């Protein structure tokens, strides 16, 4: 591949150019922000904003319910706007089930025990509201479901893939789980074609220029899905000489930003200079 278009991507990612004004604006621009490490997600917001603090991120997660964290792209935790959650979840969750089932088996959780865990989690959150991981683990232990080793986190992952729960408000330093239907209201069905088109468009806004493989890798979706999304927005795309595509009317690259401490990045992303 040709030299990575660093200035363009830094601009798309809001690391170069005018800083954004809120955590929500960052999540809107990037669509999904790495959330494996809570501090890392907050630092990703910091590097792209002015006049925002980590407490502002907590507020968006808690009081405002405008942001949430759950397992999305590549089955990893991401910070997204609540309004982007339904369709991004609908696109990415189906890719998680096979691996999830395998890992629960490895942890000694039968299918029946998994279903019991889902019912237990759902009724605990419905009756008690936001609960920390520690609380939920205690409820599962109480119901006789194995939570040893990695079993607990894989059960949370399954519940997230099913669309039962997300990480919503902060309870002190802990990020609490909530029932999706209580926290965000009843979810509307998602049109897959429209969602793939939106995915392609938003990916290019916040991460472009890029190609179909970049998109597939980022989202953790099959290449055919990435291509379908890009095809659906073909009239809005500009083919570049380096083989990548960008949205027509993409802003000119801003000057490189001043020296800055960033949060953590995936190693594979750093290689393609894509943070």
């Amino acid at each position: 591949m040709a030299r990575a278009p660093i200035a363009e991507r830094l601009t798309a990612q809001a690391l170069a150019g005018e800083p954004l004004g809120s955590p929500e604006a960052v999540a809107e621009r990037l669509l999904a922000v790495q959330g494996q490490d809570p501090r890392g997600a907050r630092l990703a917001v910091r590097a792209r904003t002015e006049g925002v603090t980590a407490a502002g991120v907590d507020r968006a997660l808690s009081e405002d319910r405008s942001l949430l964290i759950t397992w999305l792209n590549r089955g990893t935790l991401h910070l997204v706007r609540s309004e982007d959650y339904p369709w991004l979840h609908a696109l990415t969750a189906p890719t998680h089930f096979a691996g999830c089932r395998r890992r629960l088996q490895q942890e000694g959780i039968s299918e029946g025990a998994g279903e019991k865990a889902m019912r237990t989690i759902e009724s605990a959150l419905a009756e008690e509201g936001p609960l920390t991981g520690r609380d939920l683990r205690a409820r599962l232990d109480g119901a006789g479901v194995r939570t040893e080793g990695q079993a607990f986190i894989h059960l949370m992952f399954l519940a997230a893939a099913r669309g039962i729960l997300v990480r919503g408000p902060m309870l002190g330093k802990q990020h609490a789980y909530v029932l999706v239907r209580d926290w965000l209201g009843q979810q509307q069905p998602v049109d897959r074609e429209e969602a793939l088109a939106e995915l392609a468009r938003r990916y290019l806004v916040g991460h472009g220029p890029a190609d179909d493989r970049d998109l597939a890798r980022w989202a953790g979706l099959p290449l055919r899905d990435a291509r379908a999304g890009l095809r659906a927005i073909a009239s809005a795309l500009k083919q570049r000489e380096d083989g990548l595509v960008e949205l027509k009317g993409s802003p000119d690259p801003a000057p490189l930003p001043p020296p800055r401490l960033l949060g953590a990045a995936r190693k594979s992303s750093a290689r393609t200079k894509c943070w």
Partner: protein
Amino acid sequence: MTTNGIFRPFALVDGRAVARWGLAAGKVTIEHLDEVLPKDAAALEKDAQRVLEYLGS
């Protein structure tokens, strides 16, 4: 769930990752991987202060 990739905070100068950094006990430590100009190193130290303010620590 996958744990693909490696997560490690880094510092960006002129579009390049030139240092790793970490935060422990309320203090930022920057570990340079590439040589940077003194003025850039100073700018990173200043940004470290802003990181602490942002996190409220």
